[in-house]
């Protein structure tokens, strides 16, 4: 039995304005897997992630995280095991200092103060942001904000990390550091992104979404080798697989 399995069964979601965002998704993710969710804008990536953490409730179908089906009663357990890093770190960081922000989750878990402090410091050290502990989050650079946002989730010791566009707004070096950090995590990872080079480096499996449906669910290399599939999903090969732009100029 694995506690970290994610099982989505025939998931449908329609927004209150009648926009159907997801129309019958089914997949399973196993313990320790690193899975990318890719697709065009509006394909349903963020909506899908919102279901994994119980921010949205399925119109139809079921979501199962570990041993718990996602219901109102099981939300606390699910939110304890799934850590979500939001697309915009400014939405995630709201306390006056970095330390208090990272401590927000552990405090809500009801942990004693000493344990909270040690968790906060180890999470901040893990992302290389221990020196920022006394700083107000809004004064940090985008890269630092992202690191702190990740630390704020790591401090809750989640089994599953869910990330929405983790590399958006980062400079190339901060992006590289983030990729290195992500590859060093042993958590089950689900990453929704447009950064296909990140997928290439971090995720061994990729799910392609298109108009609220799963277009493909295969090993990453297979997906990125299928040009027809990529075109259909409004994607293109990662830059790392496109070859030298000078030697082989694009037509």
């Amino acid at each position, binding site marked *: 039995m694995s506690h970290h399995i994610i099982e989505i069964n025939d998931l449908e979601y329609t927004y209150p304005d009648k926009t159907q965002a997801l129309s019958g998704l089914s997949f399973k993710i196993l313990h320790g897997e690193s899975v990318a969710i890719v697709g065009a804008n509006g394909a349903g990536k963020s909506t899908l992630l*919102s279901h994994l953490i*119980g*921010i949205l409730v399925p119109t139809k179908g079921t979501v199962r995280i570990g041993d718990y089906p996602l219901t109102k009663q099981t939300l606390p357990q699910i939110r304890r095991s799934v850590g979500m890093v*939001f697309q915009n770190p400014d*939405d995630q960081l709201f306390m006056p200092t970095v330390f*208090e922000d990272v401590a927000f989750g552990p405090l*809500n878990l009801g942990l004693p*103060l000493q344990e909270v402090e040690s968790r906060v410091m180890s999470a901040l050290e893990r992302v290389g942001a221990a020196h920022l502990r006394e700083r*107000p989050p809004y004064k940090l650079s985008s890269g630092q904000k992202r690191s702190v946002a990740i630390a*704020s989730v790591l401090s809750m010791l989640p089994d599953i990390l869910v990330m929405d566009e983790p590399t958006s707004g980062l400079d190339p070096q901060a992006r590289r550091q983030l990729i290195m950090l992500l590859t060093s995590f042993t958590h089950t990872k689900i990453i929704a992104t447009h950064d296909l080079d990140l997928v290439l480096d971090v995720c061994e499996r990729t799910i392609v979404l298109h108009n609220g449906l799963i277009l493909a669910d295969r090993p990453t290399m297979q997906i990125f080798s299928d040009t027809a599939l990529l075109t259909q999903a409004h994607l293109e090969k990662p830059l790392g697989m496109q070859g030298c732009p000078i030697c082989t100029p694009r037509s």
Partner: protein
Amino acid sequence: MSKMESYWLDLRQLDEMAIHKSVIHHIHPCAKLLTTVIFLTVVASFSKYEVSGLFPMFFYPMLLMILGELPLGPIMHRVLLALPFVMFIGIFNPLLDQIPFLQIGPLLISGGWISLFSIFLRFLLAVTAALILVATTGIDGIGMALLQLKVPRVFVVQLLFMYRYLYVLLEELIRTIRAHSLRSFQGEGIKIGVWGSLLGQLLLRTIDRAQRIYGAMLCRGFDGEIRLIGRKKLVGIDIVYFLGWSIFFIVVRLVNIPQWLGTLLIGGY
């Protein structure tokens, strides 16, 4: 930088002051909050025409600003922002109350002018004290103190959320106004017709953003209860701080110290 942006930075500055570490910052939030409440009550309790008796009360904000290492400029800047509202309260006093009160040589000062000046002093004391409380305690510290003083949790959570929402609102407002000013070339400000849709947009956007923030809080186990880090118990220095100031305020209220000193100097005894 637009005026709005500078207000926003100003607001942030108050939070930054609260992170600072000083003797005053280390006093328990409960002690500081209660002291401020007693200070405000005493200031409000002075009679309508009291001026000289109020002066010793300035000792409190002055000492706190020095010990709390607070910059004078930003605090006074905020005090000035509130000034017009207070002046409106007393602006008609000189017209309504023309009973002669004081004569300095040929100059006759009516009771209205004295009460206006008294209102001004009280305002200065009250607003400075409140700002010092926020700048040395932080809104979360005040929230924690209120919880410890058994204020219903729902009010405290509302207060903390309102404070955070203010930031969200201001940030969105800055963005909206910037977008408007980039595409309006007359430089006449925002036309009244545009305000309607602009404010509507602002409301929807801030609600959206507030919902995302709330979602992020839920993801990290928020269940309606605010749990803050901070010292829970009052220690000796906190009680000394509270009692010391309270006794000082009461003495100042009961004894008109400037008058007493004056009498002492000119040999009234």
